[in-house]
């Protein structure tokens, strides 16, 4: 699915615009949506999924204008969504919950729904608890139920908001691999603060800040923003000034800093940038 977002604005009464004249084109495949808190990521996803309507502007998905209710309804048939905060109905089992989601996605054949639910629960590692009440599952398991429900109906557009929050490292990697597989033949919009997840899975990235588009393009391009500006300092006593500190590694001689700056301290060594460096370079220059 090719998504074209055209001059999109969303105002909430008494608050600054959550989206401010946002224009961006998103190609098919895995797309990372990143930005600080309050950048407008969740608002954009809620508009994309048809939960709320924009104040101004439009979204066109594969030539279908989402301002038309019929087009929105049609999109929803091919949509999977994982909200940031979701507590599935606690007195249903994961299997019953996925059955419910299947009905909501208009999968009318009960056997098909049940088979899909079984397969997805196995994919997210919940086969042993699929008949237990969700209320008795751990936070990570509930998150996995959320992930499985988003995949019901084999959606062509998958919108996931902080999907790996609350997952242990093993599960995070498992889900990352699953997302990367799904992204081969559909559009997956992944909003996250974990830049490593984006670096590992998303060839395309969109950076939002204050409801505006700061960057959209290949992930490599964002990394390139920090090329020639990423340095590792020698062990020093105090953090360097006029630099964005990416991380700090304590050593017996002092602290070694990884920084993004145009004016590195003496003795610093230029290093290969990564997505975190690129993101911080972009954020600090604008």
């Amino acid at each position, binding site marked *: 699915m090719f998504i074209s977002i055209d001059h999109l604005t969303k105002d909430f009464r008494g608050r600054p615009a959550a989206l401010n004249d946002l224009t961006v084109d998103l190609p098919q495949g895995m797309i990372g949506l990143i930005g600080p808190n309050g950048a407008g990521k969740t608002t954009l996803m809620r508009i994309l999924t048809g939960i709320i309507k924009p104040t101004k502007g439009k979204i066109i998905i594969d030539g279908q204008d989402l301002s038309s209710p019929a087009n929105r309804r049609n999109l929803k048939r091919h949509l999977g969504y994982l909200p940031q905060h979701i507590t599935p109905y606690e007195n*249903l089992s994961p299997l*019953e919950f996925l059955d419910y989601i299947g009905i909501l996605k208009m999968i009318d054949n009960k056997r098909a729904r049940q088979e899909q639910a079984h397969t997805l629960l196995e994919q997210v590692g919940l086969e042993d608890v699929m008949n237990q009440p969700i209320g008795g599952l751990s936070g990570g398991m509930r998150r996995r139920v959320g992930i499985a429900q988003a995949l019901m109906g084999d959606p062509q557009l998958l919108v996931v908001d902080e999907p790996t929050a609350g997952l242990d490292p093993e599960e995070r990697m498992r889900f990352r691999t699953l997302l990367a597989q799904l992204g081969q033949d559909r559009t997956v919009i992944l909003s996250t603060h974990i830049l490593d997840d984006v670096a590992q899975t998303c060839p395309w990235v969109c950076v939002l800040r204050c409801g505006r588009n700061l960057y959209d393009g290949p992930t490599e391009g964002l990394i390139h923003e920090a090329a020639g500006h990423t340095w590792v300092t020698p062990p020093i006593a105090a953090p360097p000034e006029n630099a964005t500190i990416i991380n700090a590694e304590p050593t017996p001689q002092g602290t070694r800093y990884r920084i993004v700056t145009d004016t590195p301290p003496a003795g610093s060594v230029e290093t290969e940038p990564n997505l975190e460096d690129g993101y911080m370079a972009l954020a600090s220059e604008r």
Partner: protein
Amino acid sequence: MRILSLVRITLLMFYRRKALWIASIPLALFALFLAYASPMSPGFSNIDGLVFTGQVLAMFTPLAYAASFSDLMTAGRRTGMDELESTSPLPMAVIRSAHVLGAWVICISSSLLFLVLIAVHQAINGNGKAILVALAVALVILAPSILIAIGISALLGALLPTIVARILAVLVWAWLAFYTPLLPLPTLNGGPLAVIGDPIAQGWFHTDPVYAPANGPFTFQSGVISLLWQVCIILLLFTGANIASNHIKARI
């Protein structure tokens, strides 16, 4: 078929709500005790007894439902399920209707069971119409009162904080069901707009009403007006709750 599938799942959800049973079963048993032991009681051995029992159940059990369903339209906001359900191609009104139907079926089940048990006892003792009358009483007296109580609770819950809504919904139901026309404050009881089935009981089943009619005995037409009025109230309550809930969601 799709809405039936949705109702099936919501039935499971409400069936497993222990608090609902803990609140409603004692009230139903208390209502049965009153229906049997009250000085007004015609007993359990005739049609009058069935109708009277239905009315007493319709007065008491909704107290539990008024307290239980203040989050019917709003729980999804807290859990994120509202967002998820909003991304379904099915209209939100259909999804919420399924939730209401599921809640209603669970709520009416215990009272219906008690009524049918009494009716079966009567049938065994030669009253062939008893089971049909029990079903009719459940449909035209119990069902609307339960839906009205759930609707009041859902509407208040969409407008007010849940705990306030629960208390207020119980008070509103108490006023609707127990406020006698003998007291010097306005009440719907004693008139065709009563929501505990007096006009239907007297107009259709020819039994004595719980509250004496203010303007002569209720007729068949009074029963029709009463039922239509209750259907209107139910539609207004749930439409209002749906609109209020959507309005709040749009602001978040």
